[in-house]
């Protein structure tokens, strides 16, 4: 039994391998890019809009509102990064309804890459907002003794982010495969419907957690209230 689409190798030439993860990732990227380019080619400002423009506006405005709810005051600035994360993970998870498709998020390489993007992006946004000295100072808060723990938490939450998404998607396909051998008729359908829901929730959580980390990094030394302490896993 395959654990991830990484092991499905379609083409190999010496060191270079082309596995299913890469193929599906590029296919998704192609579909998302071409689709949004086609939709945004004829944008209208008036009331008469195409239905695709309405769809994209709903998605973008919804993501921006969610980012703002987390506590980032200028969602437009972070929309590029967080929105891309959400759209990629969500479409990767939702496309599991297409037969023969293997979600690229069910491979630890993809999720680790996404989590590394978050690991790099959080300090960048923090430094941009507060300056490098101020940002580095947040690592020594409340006391200097907490410095190693802050660094460890930075790394461990990246690991948790990667393994959470990978585990959820992998378990979805794995349970489906196991159920197909036991009860091949009705149950797999129910479980794949549940898999779509988990996929959507995981995409949402990945984005929200990234937004929470960015919010914690950009908030700086303002006095924190009880209600908006950052969630940590």
């Amino acid at each position, binding site marked *: *039994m395959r*654990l991830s689409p990484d092991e499905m190798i379609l083409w190999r030439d010496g060191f270079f391998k082309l596995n299913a993860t890469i193929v599906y990732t590029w296919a998704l990227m192609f579909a998302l890019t071409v689709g949004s380019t086609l939709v945004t080619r004829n944008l209208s400002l008036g009331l008469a809009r195409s239905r695709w423009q309405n769809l994209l506006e709903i998605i973008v405005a919804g993501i921006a509102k969610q980012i703002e*709810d987390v506590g980032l005051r200028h969602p437009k600035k972070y929309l590029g990064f967080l929105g891309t994360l959400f759209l990629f993970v969500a479409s990767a998870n939702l496309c599991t309804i297409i037969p023969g498709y293997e979600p690229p998020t069910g491979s630890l390489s993809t999720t680790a890459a996404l989590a590394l993007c978050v690991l790099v992006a959080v300090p960048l946004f923090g430094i941009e907002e507060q300056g490098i000295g101020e940002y580095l100072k947040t690592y020594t808060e409340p006391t200097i003794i907490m410095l190693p723990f802050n660094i460890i938490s930075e790394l461990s939450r990246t690991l*948790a982010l990667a*393994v*959470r998404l*990978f*585990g*959820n998607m*992998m*378990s979805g396909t*794995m349970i489906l495969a196991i159920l197909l051998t036991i009860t091949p008729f009705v149950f797999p359908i129910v479980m794949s419907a549940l898999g779509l829901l988990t996929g959507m*929730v*995981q995409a*949402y*959580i990945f984005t*929200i*957690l990234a937004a929470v980390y960015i919010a914690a990094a950009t908030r700086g030394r303002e006095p924190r209230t009880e209600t908006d302490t950052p*969630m940590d*896993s």
Partner: protein
Amino acid sequence: MDNATLIAIASIVTAGLTIALGSIGPALGEGRAVATALSSLAQQPDAATTITRTLFVGLAMIESIAIYCFVVSMILIFANPFWTHFVAEAAGK
């Protein structure tokens, strides 16, 4: 018993124990979270959207602990490094 049997027994038993013991805690935690969310929904139906959103995020976080256990048990069964090492060594002989 030779080494291969020992590795197989240890992996299978540990995989079962991992998922069995590892799902107790998250199950209790999720039950508590949902119960509290339900009672606060009953008290404050106005805050339904916020409560639901926080509940979903929290549930997924709690669930991810069980998912970690699942990943470990899957690795033990399907991608066991010790087993692979042993098989490779046996094939080399």
